[in-house]
């Protein structure tokens, strides 16, 4: 399913005035493709990602997955949480793995959050860990993994629930160029394979050779003024 961000505006209170973090942004990410969102610090990339994830309510505009409007300025916290659980996968800037869980348990956690038996996703979890190249470390805790391995586990965790949308925030910020490129390649490949509409925020364009499209944000707006960003066919 495609991800549509329509007329997204996000305004924060800033002392006596307000700060516009995202200003009337329209963006569509087709299913199975990866769009990289580039721009300098403070451009509004992470704010836009937070709105796309339902972590922040937009001041105006809607987020649609397929034909379903999932986030609006009036969406409740409980509904946002449910949508994230059922339809969205997230990869954070740092892996954000839970210290007490093994790599495989990080993936099983998703099933538990959905009220299913963790064992029900064990096979798929192992497949995903294999796909991201850390199957041999399935029973290790985060402290026993390298930074790159942790990030790969985080990518597998984001995909274990077969999300329709994958949102990725600066996945290469802590990695060198080579490993950063590998991680982006991994994400775009898996997103294509799983038909997930993937929006990837990055500050490093050199690692984005495998993405399907790039858009730039500057001063809270997309540089392209067209309602839908141009997306390079897969």
């Amino acid at each position, binding site marked *: 399913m495609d991800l549509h961000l329509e007329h997204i505006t996000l305004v924060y209170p800033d002392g006596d005035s307000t700060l516009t973090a995202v200003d009337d942004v329209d963006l569509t990410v087709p299913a199975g493709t990866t769009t990289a969102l580039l721009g300098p610090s403070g451009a509004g990339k992470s704010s836009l990602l937070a709105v796309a994830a339902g972590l922040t309510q937009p001041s105006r505009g809607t987020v649609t997955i397929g034909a379903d409007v999932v986030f609006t300025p009036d969406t409740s916290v409980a509904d946002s949480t449910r949508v994230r*659980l059922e339809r969205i996968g997230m990869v954070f800037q740092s892996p954000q793995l839970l*210290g007490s869980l093994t790599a495989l348990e990080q993936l099983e956690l998703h099933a538990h959050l959905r009220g299913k038996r*963790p064992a029900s996703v064990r096979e798929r979890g192992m497949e995903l860990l294999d796909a991201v190249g850390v199957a041999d470390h399935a029973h290790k805790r985060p402290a026993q993994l390298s930074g790159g391995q942790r990030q790969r586990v985080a990518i597998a965790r984001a995909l274990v629930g077969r999300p329709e949308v994958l949102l990725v925030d600066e996945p290469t910020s802590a990695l060198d160029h080579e490993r950063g490129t590998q991680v982006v390649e991994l994400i775009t490949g898996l997103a294509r394979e799983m038909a997930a509409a993937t929006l990837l925020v990055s500050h490093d364009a050199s690692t984005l050779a495998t993405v399907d499209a790039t858009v730039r944000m500057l001063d809270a707006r997309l540089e392209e003024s067209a309602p839908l960003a141009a997306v390079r066919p897969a």
Partner: protein
Amino acid sequence: MFVALRDLQHARGRFVLMSVVIVLITFLVTFLASLTAGLARESTSAVTDLPADHIAFSMPAEDDAPEFTASRVEADQWDAWADVEGVESADPLGVATTRAETDGTTASVTALGVDEGTNLVPGSDGEGDDGEAGDVEPGTVVLTPEAAGALDAQTGDIVTLGGTALTVAATVEADQSFSHTPVVWTSLDDWQDIGARGSATAGGGADPVATVVALTTTDDADLAAADDALGTTTVTTSDARSAVSSFAGENTSLTTMQAFLLVISALVVGAFFTVWTISRSGDIAVLKALGGSTGYLLRDALGQAAVLLVGGVAVGTGLSVAAATLLPDAVPVVVTTATTLVPAAGLILLGLVGAGVSVARITRIDPHAALAAR
């Protein structure tokens, strides 16, 4: 409790430390409860074990709270009580702490004086202890085991109570005491010489007196009206414990300590989970960002607290019971459901309240923080 149980295992050191604190607090609370009950029994078992449901006191002033040391009832009062509708029996009971002597042995005892034919003496209902107790004839005394032990006396020996020489008629099995002294049973006639107060002291030919009237009543009895008419103050046998001066002070002190310990335990558990929750804020933000509902996270955190509390309280209660079993008889501890399971349940409940207040901050953690965290 997917994450909670793994946290317990992963952060073993922290949780073991907290468990030890809970174990020690539980041990203190349950042992103190057992000690409180034991001391209460040493103070009041002579009263609470009476086969009566109410005790009538006659205090010097009408507004005085009932007190065994000040109460004094006269024959016309217990005779009148016996005639009150709904009163099945009204037995005078003299209570006096005095010195008892045998050849070469002296001990403090509480002499309980009863009328002949009363059912107040253990064994008088046919379910007696050695078959010979149950009544006390003038010139004799019935000993409880502790009194017999303290005086090194047995049936047939002479015991001098407050200057009155009496022959030991029997030793009952019921171990009763009053105000931390063992009980001996005498006839009310002999008790006049031993413990009567005021002008009715025997020897002057006056009417006998006693300390209180032990009543067995039915629901039909209008006790308040009888009190008004007879100038007495009637309380239940259980409430009569407060009329034993040593009981009130001890019980209040020890119960206050237990209450403080319960409050402290809730605060300690609350403080631990406050720190724990703050240290987990990042993980909680991630869990929320991944789609974990606030309800799920609260259940997970409270489940973790419950595991910790139930485990710690169970071990602490077990230690307390074991200590009570191993301690010498001189330490008055009573292990019952009320002194172990009830305070244990209180600790778990209050601990969960403390933990609940602490983990409530989960509701305020913003999942957006997961994006900012590094």
